[in-house]
């Protein structure tokens, strides 16, 4: 693939990515009023989208992956994001280095 082609692919992908980031707002802002049901749908967005970035990985990550996610979920019940991430990360790195 030539240098110019690669650059054009990157630029086109960047433009489309920006459209995904502004597009939802542009569509929604045309509505005069947001129905309470739509409001409830928007309230569900963070958990709904972020969960999809975890669930398929969880079933593919084997026992070490599940152990790391379980530990992270438990730590999250009491502590903030950084301790949660570091605890889960320590479990997965430790188990993988140990050969699991």
């Amino acid at each position, binding site marked *: *693939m030539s*240098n110019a082609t*690669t*650059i054009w692919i*990157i630029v*086109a*992908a*960047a433009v*489309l*990515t*920006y459209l*995904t*980031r*502004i*597009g*939802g*707002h542009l*569509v*929604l*802002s045309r509505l005069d009023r947001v129905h*309470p*049901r739509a*409001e*409830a749908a*928007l*309230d*569900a*967005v*963070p*958990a*709904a*989208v*972020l*969960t*999809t*970035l*975890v*669930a*398929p*990985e969880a079933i593919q*990550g084997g026992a*070490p*992956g599940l152990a*790391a*996610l379980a530990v*992270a*979920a438990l730590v*999250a*019940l009491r502590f*903030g*994001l*950084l301790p*949660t*991430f570091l605890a*889960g*990360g320590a479990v*997965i*790195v430790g188990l*993988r*280095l140990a050969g699991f």
Partner: protein
Amino acid sequence: MAGRTADMLGGARRSIPVIVAVAPFGLLYGALAVHGGLTIFQTVLMSVTIFAGASQLVGIELFGQTIAPWVIVLSIFAVNFRHVLYSAALGRRIASYSSLQKAIAFFFLTDPQYAEAEQAAEGGRAVSFAWYMGLAMPIYAFWIAEAAIGALFGGLIRDPHALGIDFLLPIYFLGLVMSFRKRPNWLPVVAASAAGSILAFRLVGSPWHVSIGALAGIAVGCLMGGGSAAALAVEGERV
């Protein structure tokens, strides 16, 4: 002015855990990109202009194969399609921004940026433009620097799987999911989203499982309806 500076510093403080969690990926991306045949300029250009880790990793995977350019562009678009949902939901939080400020803010709408903004709004704090950019700029700067460093010293990461680096991002995203656990309908939404994404992953394939699973969760949230999330802050100042 003092308020604006304080807001910006407050946002910057919230960027620290994000930067720590994302750093391995920024480096891994840079390393894999040059390994896959991209120049250092192309590698960094992707981080500067696209600024979306998962889609960048998908992109460099495809650059290495003989695939039509439009298929690569479409694949990156598909991976990033979830941002449409963030975008729709974030509008309520940044209604006070000028059009130009909105246009700028949406460029920086990554997963952690969105999650932090939602949490700030949930905690009853105003998501000011200064705060938003104070959060966004360090994340962006580190993301670009990591691409360059990864590209220059790519050989250092030999086996991401053995080190567990490939699994750090799901752990981080789980932490974000957990931080919204006091929202109405959280558990049913998460359950529907998890089931939907796993089924779609098996039946339809990646990356469509993200949009399909998300819609399943959002449909459940919509059907169950219920109270405003604004009063139900969870995390607030916890880092």
